[in-house]
């Protein structure tokens, strides 16, 4: 399913920086941008790191505007301020983008090719790896690019587990 199609994974926070990493092997490579981790299997994307930053910023803006033009009020309730209003899924004719918004403003999104599955579990796992291996890393400064080997390993593992289903 996803293995044949390829999958890209990106996440992005409100402030931004850039970092490139060496490709690990010929099949997959990733770039860490600001708080973005990008995996692309089988060269399904030819984006440069600048492109990735630009696209993530675009997505951030799109999500904000989409929330602004909403025809519906946010449903009330004691914790309604925690309810996220950004874009959750975005469908195009050849791919689907699914985004997970955290309460702190970090966005984690992945690009999938058909057949589409719900990648919510994967995105949440990446978030949990982020909070375990990145935020708890004493040498990591907030909003700086991510250079944490355990984080990449864990994300890679989650990705292969998810794709192996």
């Amino acid at each position, binding site marked *: 399913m996803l293995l044949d199609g390829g999958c890209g994974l990106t996440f992005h926070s409100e402030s931004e920086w850039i970092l490139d990493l060496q490709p690990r092997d010929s099949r997959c490579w990733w770039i860490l941008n600001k708080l973005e981790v990008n995996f692309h299997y089988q060269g399904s994307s030819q984006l440069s790191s600048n492109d990735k930053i630009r696209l993530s910023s675009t*997505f951030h*803006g799109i999500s904000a505007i989409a*929330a602004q033009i909403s025809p519906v009020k946010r449903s009330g309730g004691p914790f309604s301020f925690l309810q*996220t*209003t950004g*874009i*959750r899924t975005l469908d*195009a*004719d050849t*791919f689907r983008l699914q985004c997970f918004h955290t309460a702190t403003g970090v966005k984690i999104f992945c690009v999938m090719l058909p057949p589409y599955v719900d990648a919510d579990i994967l995105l949440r796992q990446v978030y949990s790896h982020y909070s375990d291996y990145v935020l708890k890393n004493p040498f990591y400064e907030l909003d700086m690019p991510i250079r944490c080997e355990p984080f990449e390993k864990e994300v890679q593992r989650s990705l292969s587990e998810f794709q192996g289903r």
Partner: protein
Amino acid sequence: AGVMVIDLERWRQRHASQLIAEWIAMNARRRLWLHGSQPPLLLLFHDEVVSLHWSWNVDGLGHRLNYPKNVQRAWIYNFYTFGRGRKLLCREEWNRTRACRDIAEESKYVSGLLITLKSFAQQLGPPRTQAFLAYSTPQYKLHSFETISGYRFVLTTDPSVPDQQECLREIYEIFVEHVIKNPLYQLGDELEHCPVFKTKLHSFLMTRPFFASPFQSVVA
């Protein structure tokens, strides 16, 4: 406000009125609860209650819209048509809970968003990506259909509504029939000379399952 249905025969068998009056008298002597009538009813019938479907409570006779999210509904909020050069040709709205304060500004946002989304999709996706189809947020879902000639048809609905490309395609056909082929219509104008398009649009949308509002099920 709530709705309560009582079986009066069983009420009389249970001497419910009398028992409730006793509870209320007890409350008057020593404050047992804060609010008036519901606690004694709950005390009396606590395990003999059957929940009614939410639609029994037509609170506000149709003016209140804060119904629970898990209730089966699929609503339509807006329909837009954009012509060449981001011009808004047609805008319809239904069921909005958040009013639009400035239509011109909103149409600028929506048309700009569509252009950005299309180029975003083409850059991010695999090489042969042509068009952006839809996005959804927890509050609503936006469907878009763009023709090769540059007209865009946009529908905003509840997030549970499935893909509407076919519906928008049919609306495009209605548009071609009653607007483009209309001899009085100049390309790029708004749709004053095409009242038939609006009536056909409305009658078509009324046949869609997502057009039904929850009140229709109550009336039926």
